């Protein structure tokens, strides 16, 4: 008998096609949709976690001919993903909840639940590839560069990856769509970021979290690079380094959030794009997949946010277990709290959380100076 697999189904096209491929390959299958929030939270939203997703997933499982179950993770999702995300915002960082969800829920709770059923493997519709050999297990970017989701999976441990399957990772999006059509599966898109997955229209993720945990916002001042007060804000959680929207209207041109100070509630903005540039940061709580921990400085590439090109960098292990990352050229808005994912070509080496973004090189400025006003 072929190996039994639990396939995580959001009701979207990618996980539906993943299920169809596994079914075609002869695996005895069960479909599972994670219920991540209570129904009343999902009212009116078209989310991967709501009832409509469950309904679509069940429809797909029924059409493909395998049973489908709903796994209630509402409480665990709140404590393992949402609460840390709120803590992160409250401390002036910008969290990456999708990574936590994969590490703790999809390949945490779900994996353990499947094991309890005697099912060793969990499949998802992520665009990433696993290359297995006798002594190696490599996590690679999805074949379709535009869809690659290896960034979201980069924190999985070797043990988690050994039990994972990513059936669509070898396919390009148009091929997935064609397969969906061929199997008469719904072609809805699965939302890919927390904004799409968890937030109701017109509400920011951070504000949704604040209400969810009934936290009081930390109001404070907005100052410019010279320390001059330009306005007040109602909560530091509403700001992200590099952000342009939602800043007080100023006299001169474009302005960005440069830094956040959770201790004082101070939001510093700048009108000079070069102020946002940084060349070095520390990656904390590193999960390292690529065999040995880099004892020598390692040349690789690093991706500092999802859907962002990866950039050449030098990585040096620190005595405290973190990594110091030096980018070859300065990057804009290195954002504390986001995941930094390390690659060797297409291969994922590991991930850490960005901390302590350091200023870029003192001179020379990379961008032309601002024209005199």
């Amino acid at each position, binding site marked *: 008998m072929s190996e039994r697999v639990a396939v995580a189904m959001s009701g979207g096209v990618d996980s539906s096609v993943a299920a169809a491929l596994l079914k075609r390959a002869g695996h005895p299958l069960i479909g599972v949709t994670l219920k991540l929030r209570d129904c009343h939270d999902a009212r009116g939203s078209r989310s991967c976690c709501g009832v409509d997703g469950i309904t679509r997933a069940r429809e797909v499982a029924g059409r493909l001919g395998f*049973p489908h179950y709903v796994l*209630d993770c509402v409480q665990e999702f709140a404590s393992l993903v949402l609460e840390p995300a709120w803590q992160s915002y409250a401390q002036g960082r910008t969290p990456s909840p999708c990574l936590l969800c994969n590490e703790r829920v999809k390949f945490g709770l779900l994996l353990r639940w499947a094991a309890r*059923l005697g099912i060793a493997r969990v499949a998802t519709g992520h665009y990433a590839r696993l290359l297995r050999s006798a002594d190696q297990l490599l996590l690679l970017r999805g074949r379709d560069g535009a869809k690659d989701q290896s960034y979201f999976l980069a924190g999985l441990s070797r043990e988690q990856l050994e039990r994972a399957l990513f059936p669509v990772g070898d396919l390009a999006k148009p091929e997935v769509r064609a397969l969906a059509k061929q199997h008469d599966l719904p072609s809805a898109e699965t939302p890919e970021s927390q904004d799409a997955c968890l937030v109701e229209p017109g509400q920011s993720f951070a504000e949704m979290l604040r209400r969810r945990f009934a936290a009081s916002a930390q109001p404070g001042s907005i100052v410019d690079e010279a320390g001059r007060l330009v306005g007040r804000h109602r909560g530091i959680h509403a700001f992200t380094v590099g952000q342009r929207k939602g800043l007080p209207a100023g006299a001169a041109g474009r302005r960005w959030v440069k830094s956040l100070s959770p201790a004082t509630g101070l939001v510093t903005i700048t009108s000079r794009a070069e102020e946002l540039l940084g060349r070095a940061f520390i990656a904390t709580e590193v999960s390292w997949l690529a065999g040995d921990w880099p004892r020598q400085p390692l040349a690789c590439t690093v991706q500092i946010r999802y859907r962002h090109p990866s950039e050449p960098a030098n990585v040096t292990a620190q005595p405290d277990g973190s990594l110091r990352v030096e980018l070859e050229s300065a990057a804009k808005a290195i954002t504390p709290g986001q995941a930094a994912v390390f690659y060797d070509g297409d291969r994922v080496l590991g991930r850490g959380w960005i901390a302590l973004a350091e200023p870029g090189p003192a001179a020379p400025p990379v961008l032309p100076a601002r024209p005199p006003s």
Partner: protein
Amino acid sequence: MIYADHNATTPLAPEVHEAMASALGASFGNASSLHLAGQEARRLVERARAQVASLIGAQPDEIVFTSGGTEADNLAVLGAARALPADQRGVVTSTIEHQAVLAPCRYLRSLGHEVTFLSVDDQGRLDMGALAAAARGRGHEHDHGRHHEHDQDHEHDHGNAHDHGHGKVGLFTVMLANNETGVIQPVAGVVKEASAGGALVHTDAVQAAGKLPIDVAELGVSLLSLSSHKLHGPKGAGALYVRRGVDLAPLWHGGRQERGLRPGTENVAALVGFGQACELARTRLGVDAGRLGLLRARFESLLRARIPEARINGGGGSGAGTRGPGHPGDGRLPNTSSVSFAGLDGEAISINLDMLGVAVANGAACSAIDHAPSHVLVAMGQSEALARAAVRFSFGRDNTDADIDRIVELVAQVVTLLRGASA
């Protein structure tokens, strides 16, 4: 697929299907209309009413059609409670009722009724001592020395209801047979206890109907709930037996159908199917019950031979009388077998059986870490872990000896697999 979850629902009997198909055709009239089309619909509804009444030894005018068992339970409990005299508003029920009774009882408590939830013994049978105390209107308040001994019931209202003047019990509601364990409850005993105080007795007979002979006169109840789809009828139909002379307050308003207790245009085809299903159940009852008892006995003896540590819930002990577990007439519905597999997870067993083409129930929703254990098994004194280890097998008319043998074989396979997985 082998279907062994008949306490959840049953397939439509072919005779029922046929009767409904014909009713869905030409007989589209509104049973309240004066013309011939309406009269034809009325005739069908009334024939169905007589068929339903006949299954339980009632008169047709004592049958109120509802949308199903849940609605019948709500109408009985809430409708009776609203019509109770002011000095007799107490309600007594058990901890093992279906939610369709438990939830209305909790609601009544929120309205100020004193509600007592009676405990059951380790075999899932109503505690007659607690019943007698409740019937005497003394409940748990009477003897504070023994209060906590009896108080397995977390829901009991500890306030002294007598001070508010409505402590006298006006309504007892105890199910005829439990849906999870199949354990038959001493409803005649409840009637006996209730009669002295002039209280009404309701019984939820949704699981018992079609599996046990029921005679409302013999049973002595005032109110009895039935559901169509548990006895090979369609979903969306049910009935409440209301003994002549019993006064219920309507929960809905807007029409005179069903004596004003269930206003709204009748679902003629569903009622025709329900009636046909009741007639079939009545004529087949002796044969069906005997066959189901033999199937269940075969299942339990084979299962115990293969998995000696499997424990049958409600299948033995004082409540089961002198005949041994597995014997037809051992104090349970003949078709129901609730089995606990200590150390394993009922949900995991159910899902694995589903993958292998066997439909059973584990009585709990799927949850990542802690799914709620069965309130019935916990009420029987089982630990939460053991209650989570339960699987309910409920057999039906179409199951065969070969089905039973196959199910036992697959259960044994799954248990072996899961023992390996948890090791």
